Each structure stands twice: as C-alpha cells, then as structure tokens.
C-alpha cells in the first residue's frame, strides 16, 4: 500500500512540473478591443473616427469650455463668479499650471488626444487591403480634417507646438516644437486632399465636404496674412 501512494506522489509532482509552460500564462482579453482585432475592416476604422467626431464638441458643450473661456481673455467679457475664484487678475492668477477652471490649459491636452486617435487611423490606414479605394480615401480625408482642426486651435492658442504625425508605440520623451507656419503649410496640403474625398452629402455629426471647404481657405489665409506682417 505504501509504495502505491509514493508512486502517485511522484507522478503528480512530475506532471505538475511539466505542465508549467508559458502558454498557461497568456493573457486573454475578454470584454474589450485591441488594435489587432479592431482595425480589420472599414467599420473598425470608422469607430476610431467616431471618437474624433465626439471630441469636436469639447469646445462648445459643458461648463466653461473654449467658447466661453476664450471670451474672458478678450474685451467680450469678464469672468463672472462672485467670489474671487474667477480669474480677473490675469497677471497673478493665470499661470502655466492654473487657469481657474477655464478651458485654456486643458486645450493643450484635449487637442492632442484626438490627434492621437486619428494618427492611429492614419498610420494604420494601409494595414488592410481595401475593397474600395474610395472608402480608404474617405476615412483618410476625415482623419486629415480632424488633425487639421485641432492643430489650428493649438497654434492659435499656444503658438509654436510640436507636430505629431504618426502613432506612438513606445514612450517618447524628447520633443521639439515646430513653427506654426510649417504646421499651417502641412495642414494646407492635407486639407487639399481631404476636400476632394470628404463625402458631399452631410450627415449630422460627420464632417463633410462643405466643412472642408471652409477650413481649407481659412488655413491658407492665415499663412498668407501672418507672413506678410
């Protein structure tokens, strides 16, 4: 009897040892998407663009957003709160790390977020073989539009900013700013492409060609005007 049990013991031990392969430790994501299983067809790319479209609202909805915030820095208006938590003494209260709840500094990160999203689309646009070339171009056009929109906002609020044109797969810590003129030039080129390929018919919430037709000349006029000064 004794020996049966000792054999069983060694059997189990050796079985356990051999089953410890790394396959057992592979993670299995269950309820969320990763780029590998998302960007497989047009719908996948479009879902990332949905995020970009949603971000367009940031300037207009919710409390103290860009539309209002830009106003207090002009002769259009003054910050309203009764107590002195509102910014009225710009010299003392507006610093690189505090803007009294107004949407000024936040625009720096909220500008680069949709840029991050569309960069993923632009960098991976040719990862699949497209059935329709026009589908590909429409997606790319809209991505260019979003990118141009946000860089436009960034350079007008902050001046020279770093230009990020591709998706990041690793942490990067050293960046250089680009001159806003060069950013505007780039923007112009991409909008030229976008205007050709954005859809003509307008669907609520989707940027369409008419919108491209407004933004493209705007970017041109900025460059020309500012260069002349």
């Amino acid at each position: 009897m004794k020996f049966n049990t000792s054999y069983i013991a060694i059997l189990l031990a050796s079985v356990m040892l051999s089953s410890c392969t790394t396959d057992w430790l592979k993670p299995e994501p269950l309820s969320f998407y990763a780029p590998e299983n998302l960007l497989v067809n047009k719908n996948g790319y479009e879902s990332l663009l949905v995020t970009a479209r949603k971000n367009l609202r940031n300037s207009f909805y919710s409390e103290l957003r860009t539309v209002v915030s830009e106003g207090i820095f002009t002769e259009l208006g003054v910050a309203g709160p009764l107590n002195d938590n509102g910014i009225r003494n710009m010299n003392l209260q507006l610093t690189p790390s505090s803007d009294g709840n107004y949407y000024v500094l936040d625009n720096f990160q909220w500008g680069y977020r949709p840029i991050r999203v569309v960069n993923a689309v632009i960098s991976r646009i040719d990862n699949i073989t497209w059935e329709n070339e026009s589908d590909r171009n429409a997606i790319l056009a809209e991505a260019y539009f979003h990118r141009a929109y946000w860089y436009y906002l960034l350079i007008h609020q902050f001046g020279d900013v770093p230009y990020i044109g591709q998706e990041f797969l690793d942490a990067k810590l050293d960046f250089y700013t680009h001159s806003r003129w060069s950013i505007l030039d780039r923007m112009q080129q991409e909008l030229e492409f976008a205007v050709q390929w954005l859809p003509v018919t307008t669907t609520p919430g989707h940027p369409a060609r008419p919108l491209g037709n407004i933004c493209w000349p705007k970017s041109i006029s900025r460059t020309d005007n500012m260069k002349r000064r």
Partner: protein
Amino acid sequence: MKKYELLARAFRKRTVSNQLSRVLKTTTFLLLIGCLHLSAASWSQTVTLRANRQSLKQVFETIEKQTGYWVVYSDQLINRSKPITIRANGMALNRFLDQILEPQALTYTIEGKNILVMSSNERTLALKNMLTGVADIKNVRLQQRVIRGKVTDEGGNPLQSVTVTQKNTKNGVLTDREGNYEMSAHGDDIVLVFTIIGYVSNEQVVGGRSTVDVALAESVSDLDEVVVVGYGTQRKRDLTGAITRIDGAKFETQSATSVSEYFSGTVAGISSTQGTGAGGGGSLEIRGRNSLKAGSSPLIVLDGVIYNGSLQDINPFDIANIDVLQDASAAAVYGARAASGVIIVTTKRGKSEVPTITLSAMTGLASVSHDYKPFDAQGFLQFREDLMNQMAPSDNLGFYARPDQLPDGVSLADWRAYSNNPNADDMLEWANRIRLNDAEIESYQQGRVTDWYDMRMQQGLRQNYDVALAGKGARVNYYLSTGYTDNEGIVYGQRLKTWRTRLNLEGQVANFLKVGLNSQFASQDGSSVAAGGITALSPYGRFKDESGALLQYPHEDPLFPNPFLDAYYKDQYVRNNRLFATLYAEFKLPFGFKYRFSFQNRLDITKDYNFWPTTTIQGGRDRQNGYGSRVDGHGYEWMIDNIVSWNKTFGQHGFDFTFLANAEKLQIQRSRQENENFGPNGSLTWHGLQYGINPSILNDDMLHTGDALMFRLNYNFDERYLLTLSWRRDGFSAFGQNHPRGVFPSTAFAWRLSEERFFHASWVDDLKLRFSWGINGNRDIPTYSALSNLSPNPYFDGTSVVVGLTNSSMANPNLKWEGTEAYNIGFDLTTLDGRLSATVDAYRGTTLDLLLDRKLPRVMGYEFVTANLGKLSNRGINATINGQLLKNERITWSSDLVFSLNRNRIDRLWGDMVEETVDGKTTYHEAPDYANGWFPGEAIDRVWDYRILGIWQEEDAEDAAVYGLRPGEYRAADVNDDGAYGQFDDKQFLGWKEPRYTFGWRNDITFLKQFDASIFLRADLGHIGARGDFNHPNSNTYDRSNALDIPYWTSENRSNSYPRLNVNYRLFEGGINIYEPRSFLRIQDASVGYRVPADLLNRVSVDRLRFFVSARNLLTVTSWTGWDPESGSSPMPRIFTLGLNASF
C-alpha cells in the same frame, strides 16, 4: 534490512512494463532512494550519539537507525520520561541502554531484534510473581493507599484532564471536570507528579497525606508554542524570521466584525486605520507602504492556503490564532504575493473528546465619538451676517445687522433708510438683506427649526451571535460554526447584515492518509442606503411636506437636494454570497516524506441592484420617470497546491524540506444592465427593468492565470544554529509577455545565543539573534495593464447612438512585478523565568521596479504608460515587549507594549534629471512629480505646501494687496520675496501625513478571582493632515446654504489662524491648505468581564460562562478639530458592547 528488501522487490516488479514514463518515474524514485540510502548504510551493535536534552523517543529512533533493532515501549511510559543528555562514542548497546534507562527507573530486555523497554517496578513485579506466586502479590497490594485531591489553576478554577502520576511508576489517572482525582498508590515514598500542557508541572511529596490538592502555575514561556509559517509549522524557538502571533482568545470581548479590527495598533509593524462604516474592518499595511500604484495590502493565508476572498467573510469567532509574517524570508515562500507581508489565519479545530458547544452573544450601541456640525439656527443667522459683510460689503455701517442689535450710533430709522424700499416688518427686511429665501423666512416666522445633524447621526444598534460545535473523536476532528451579525452604523441608513458559517472536518482515514475539508460560506446584505451629507442644508428648511412625503429641496433651492431621499425612497438590493472551500489529502510516505494535495475553490456571487424612483433626484430630476440598474458578478477561482515535505533529524543535524507546485485560475463575469424612463409606473423597480425605454448593457469579463514553484530548506545544528533557504518562481498572466515569471529567493540565519556554552547570564532564559534577506514580489496590477485597451466611447450623432472606440492606453510588453528586497535583523529575548520577553526587529526594504504611471508629455496624447521604473524604500524598527508584571492568587497583571517606526522614501521615479540652482549652487537631481506630490528623496506622504504664517489683518491691507489678497486671507511665507505665490518658489516641506511613531499598550488584569479587565491604549504621533474645510471651497454659494460650524475671521473677530469665509485660495498657485497635527492618544479598547464561578456552573453542566462589558474608542486626546484624526473626513464611531461567552 527488511525494508530495503521489500523496496528492491517492488522495483523489480515495475521494470516489467516498457513505457518511457514509467522508466522516468522510477529513475526519479531511485534517485530519491539513493539519497536516503546513505542513512541506512550499516548496522552495528554500538551507539554513537551526542545528545543534549533530547527526548527519550528521539534517542530510541537514533538507536533504531544505528543498530537496526526495533525498540518497543508504551507511550505512557515514554511521556513521563525525562530528557536525556549523554555523550556516547561507539558505546556498546547494552551499556548505552543502561546509562539512559536506569536513571529513569526503566529497564529493558532484548529478544531477537527487539528491545523491550518497561519500568523497573513492573519488571521486578513480573519476576516476583513468577518466582513467589500469588501470596506475595497480595502482600504487595495490601500496601496500597488511596490518595484524593483537587487540581486547580492559580485562580482557583478546576483543571480538567490533568495527568496525575506516581513518580517512577506507570501508575496514573486524569482529573475529571471538577479537577478531582482519586488514585491508589503503593510504596513508601509516594511522589505525585501533576502535568498538563500550558502549565508548569508540579511534584508533591505525599508523605502521610491522603488528600493532596495542588494549584498549577501557568507556563508563561511560549517557546514550545507552534507557530504557523508558510506551508508548514515551526516551533517558536526554531524561527529564523520575524513572525508575530496573536491569540484569538485575547479578543473575545472585542465586538469585531472583521479580523482587521484586531490589528488597529496592536501589532508592531502593522498599520491599520479603523473603518467607520457599519461593517467595521479597516485598512492593513505591514512595514510601510511599499508601492505607489500597486496594492499594498498583505496577503491572507487561511488554514494553510492562499485566500483571495474578502477578509470580512472570516468570522472572528472562528479564529484560533493569527500569525503575521513580517520579514522577507518568512514571507518569501509566497513569492509574488508577499511584498506587503503575509497574515496567516488559523481557524479552530475540535479539541476535546466530548463534543463542546461554544456560544457568544453580543449587543452594542455605536454613536459618533466627536461631533462636527454645521451651524445651528442662531449660528446660521450670525454666519449669514458675517458672510454678507465679507462678500458684498456695504458702505452703510450695520447694514446687515439685526435690527434689535444695531451698532452704536445707528438708529433703527437710519438702518431702515439704508434701503430704498424697506419692508414694513424690520425682521423681514433684515431677513431679505441676509438673503434668506421665502421658504426660510416662512420657517423663521413660524419658529420652525430643523436639526439636520441630529437627524443624520444615529445611535446604531449592533448585534452579534455565534455558536459552534466542535469535537475530536478517535479518528475524526470536526468544527462547525455559524454566526449572524447585524450592525447599524452611526449615520442614518448605514446597516450591514452578515451570516457566516464554517465547517472544518478532518478524518484519519488510514495510518498514512488524512483527508479534510475547510469551508466557509458568507452571505452579506448591504441593501441599506445611508443618508448623504447635511452640511449645506439651512436650519430653516423643512424635512417633509404637508402630505408627509419628503421635500425634494428642503429650503427650496434646487442646488441643495434632500440627502434622505435615497435613504427613504431608493430600492437597493445588495447581496454578496461567497463560498471558500479547501479539500485536502495528506499522505504519510516512507522515509519521513509527507505529501499534501489541496484544492481550493472560491465562488463569489454579487448582486448590486438599484432603482431610483421619480421621488429621488437621480430618478426624478437627472432622469425622467425613474432610473434602474442591475449588476451581476460571478467570480470563480480555483487553486491547486502540491506540497511535498520531509523532516528528519540526524543526530545534531535537523533538516526540514518543503517543495510546492501550484497553479491557479480566476474567472469573473460581470453584467450590467440599466434603463430609465419607466412606464406605466416604476412600481416593479429593479425587478422589471424591461419596462424602461432606454436600455443599456455593459459586460466586463476577465480572467487571469498563475503558477508557482517553491523550494525551502530549514536546517538546524544542535538547535543552536538555524538556517533557512528558500526559492520561489511565480508566473502571472498580467505581466507583460517578455517577463511572465519572476524569481524570489531568500535566506535567513538565527543563532540561539543562550544555548552556547560560553553564555552565562542566568537571568536570560532564551536569547536568539536573527538575520534575514529576501526578495518578495507584488503582482497586484490590473489584469490587462500590459495590453493596449481600446475603450468604448459611444456618441450620439443627432439621430442614433454610434459605437466609437478610443485608444487611450499604451501597451507595455515589458511590464513585470514589483520586487521588494528586504533585510531584517532582530533578536528575541525571554528572561526572568519567562516573565518578560522582548522582540526587536530593524528592517530595510527597497522596492525596485516600482510600478508607475509614467507621465508622458501631453503632446503624445497618452496621459501615461504603466512601466516599472521607480525605486522606493522603507526602513524601520519594530519592538514588542511582553511582561507578566504580577502573578499571585488574588491578582495577575500582564502587559504588552508595541512600538513601530517606519521611514519611507522615494529613491527614484522615472529618472527625469533637472539642473537646479539653489543658493548659488547648481545641483543636478531628479525632477519630482509635482502633480502627484512625489519627491525623490522624500517620503510618499511628505507634505509640500505653503507655510501659513498667519492671517492678514485690517491694518495689513496694503501688504496683502501686493499679492492680490485682502484682510482675512492666508498670509503665507513668500520664500523668494517676489510678490507672488508661486509653487516652485514658495512651497516648502511641512511635515508628513503618516504617523512617525506608533505605540500600543495593552494591559490584562485578573482580580478578585472571577473578574478580568483589559485596556488598550494607542498612540499615533508626529503627523499632520490638511484641513481643506477652512478653504471654504463652496463659498460662492454660501449665500444660499449653510456651512460647517468652524471658526473664521471677521474684522471684529481677528483670528490669526483661520481665514475669512470667502477666502481666495486660487491665488496660491497649486492650492493651499491649513495643516493641523493629527497625532492622537486613544483608549481604543477597554473591557471588564466576570466569570461565573465553576461550582455554580456545574449544577447546570455549563463549562464556562463569562459576562463582559467593553468599549471601543472610549476616549481620544488630540488637537485635530475635524471628525477624527484617524478617519479624517468621516465620523468615527464609539461603541459600547455587552455580551457573554459560554461553552457547554
């Protein structure tokens, strides 16, 4: 020789079959045999042994091994034997046996290969009988006497099952329930020996007495106590690591709902903050916080297996004792789970042959220990007056003053003339000026005042009932318990009900096989909804309207809803049902091997169902016609442990080897459904979510897997030098695929200095020096943090909802566990006959590969990436001193003092170096993470803020204006004198948020035979906390609400500590705070108990009955002005309990 022959035969049988696996197995088997073979090499007729106080049994084992003879003896005989000290070198067997047996009145005969050991008397008697016949036997019997007596402890309580033996004979009896015994003894010099575990054995010379009563002294020395270590047990004297033991019986009077309440300041090295809700509990941290992002809670091991469930499910009533593994080497056997220490909980087992029922019933009241209220009606009116003076100052003196309390020189007519169209009623005019609204004015006129604070705080009733049945039969050990807890909290609506039950069963199926089950089931009901905060509510608001329904807005201001709405109207159903069961089998194999197979599974089912009807804010204002949600969670986890252990002593060398192979898997499925806008009405609540018109679904499933291998070797030489080596390899699926496994080695060495021959201090009973080093891991990171998660981002484009996704997290395939490398050095000292013992440990632990959300430049679009970058260290000292200060018949007093000191330091974050010029010197050092407040070189809890020097007063108006401030604002130190408060220039290090020193002092006293009392004092010293309430962050709506009754500056009340009501804290870059010292001294636990005398109990066949009264958080001494220095921003309960413990 026989054993070996049998093995060889078996081996020959097996080689008949051809399978490769069998050959492999037999080879392994052979290898094992080969190693053991050495010990059974040669048989001889001589004995070589150097024994120092070894038990007779051990010596017999040595004889067996060395000579090949079998030694036959009766257990009873051997249990009464004394330890043996002998030095034999090639001594003849006969002579050796003479030497060891004769002094013990034992003798032997050798028959064949067997040595029969028996008592001398027995043998003589046997011989005599053979030679002389019956008559002499009768003679012998006539000399017998009957001796009776009673055995008690020093308090006079009878001791059951005490072994009473006649010295040098095998004559013995046991005492009964009342401690009485009766035995017949013969001989001239009768000496009785009284022994029982836990007490010092006592010898009594009977002489001429026929009644011998004895009182036994408790054995204070606990060195023989067995302590649970990782995957095994060890005697306390053999420990090489820093392990603290807590005896469950000590906390019988504490009405604890969760085990973590035992740790609030009671164990050196454990920092625990009391939980304030109905469920009690509390946070746990061992030896400082050793992680910034990953969890820092210790690992819980329950009855030898890793327990990932909730600590609240373990009924404190079921706990026999708790062992805390603090240093790296003790905990290293748990590898990647052990960086924050390990708490081993052992539940009760059956102890007596007779089934015993134990019962505990407690009832108590909890109330708030320190009030922190808003203004009452009078104060509210004064507050409004002061507020208006500061917020909208008027040039007219006394504009806001009460018309019947006008300042000097202002007449009522003057006062009325201040307004263009004053109200005919003076009080009404005043009420309008201080901005009371119509509803408040109506209540004011009717003299109707609501005390919201009193309505919100309540006296919570607490009840706890536990009963257990336990016993230990010949081959079965059982423990079955069930307990019910129903606690109300100190806030209206706080309530928690828990039912916990446990079954521990173990059976000795065969000599070599033990099979058992440890299982617990807990069902928790958290359906009660608590009331929200009431600080902003006006005392002139109303609670209910005329129909008796709650007013949604008590003072008719839509910014301030009634916080009792959810408590009264919300339908909440929260249930947690959790089962944890371990099945195990333990095989005793030849050559001292043991194999234990255990299978643990844990089932966790949660239901969180909510419905907010239209009468609530969520269901009536934020959404229409009701809002409901149902969350169902189902978690199943299994774990398999294969443990092989081997324990052998060869002469002076003792080996104890453990090997573990483990695998685990956890799967959780979570479904969430919600809906809103219910028709026709919401009366089906969460039972009928399908009746809404806007459903939404969310699924959140996860799974993770892990595996582990572990080796540990304990070696001791002559029980003086002790060495432990261990190695563990852990794999976990949450780690990045480049590092799926981690390795965690450790080593420890201990030296029992007091056993050395050169050690002559007689006042020292035992002195042991310990040193250990080890690496433990922390794997407490989110399951999928190494992958890039695309999170859903739905969008409504004007016509329909569209599914969007966003790539807000970066992947990191290099993600791995955090490793904590720790050194520990310490000593354990027992002196004065076990009356005083001290343990002191000093440690230093460094966490490498600290998991950090490495903040990324905003231009990347990603906020952060989780990476192993930083380095963090903890250094400290833990000291525990236990003393038996008094011990006599009338009073005993034992005292325990614990002290901890921990210094935490961030050594490195992610290595961004900056140049900085300070006082003309340029230094190059790592940049801090200002956003999180992490400064390399400083503790995690370091406070970095402006130093507040005082408050600007009226006469300082000009100086204050330089900064844009007014009188009544904070006057802080402007370090670089530049006329602005910039955080990088003017913020300084002010103090620490975690206690610098903690003390705990417990005294247990028994007096007047039946009474016992205990008191525990706790002190956390040296830290400060932010009092953000003084910043009045809601001051922009103070003209519509009430506020906390805390001091503030006015031009009349020129406080130099507290600012004005509408203080401008935004002018201080990075924010500003008042800090108060958070040190406190507390009588945390005090209890008095009365034990009903045994003679009364025996009439109703009750073993033990004890009544007690206890209090928790009885008294707190502190200068903190908020709720409580320990709980910060929530009220701390004070609990009084009345209860009884009984056993039958």
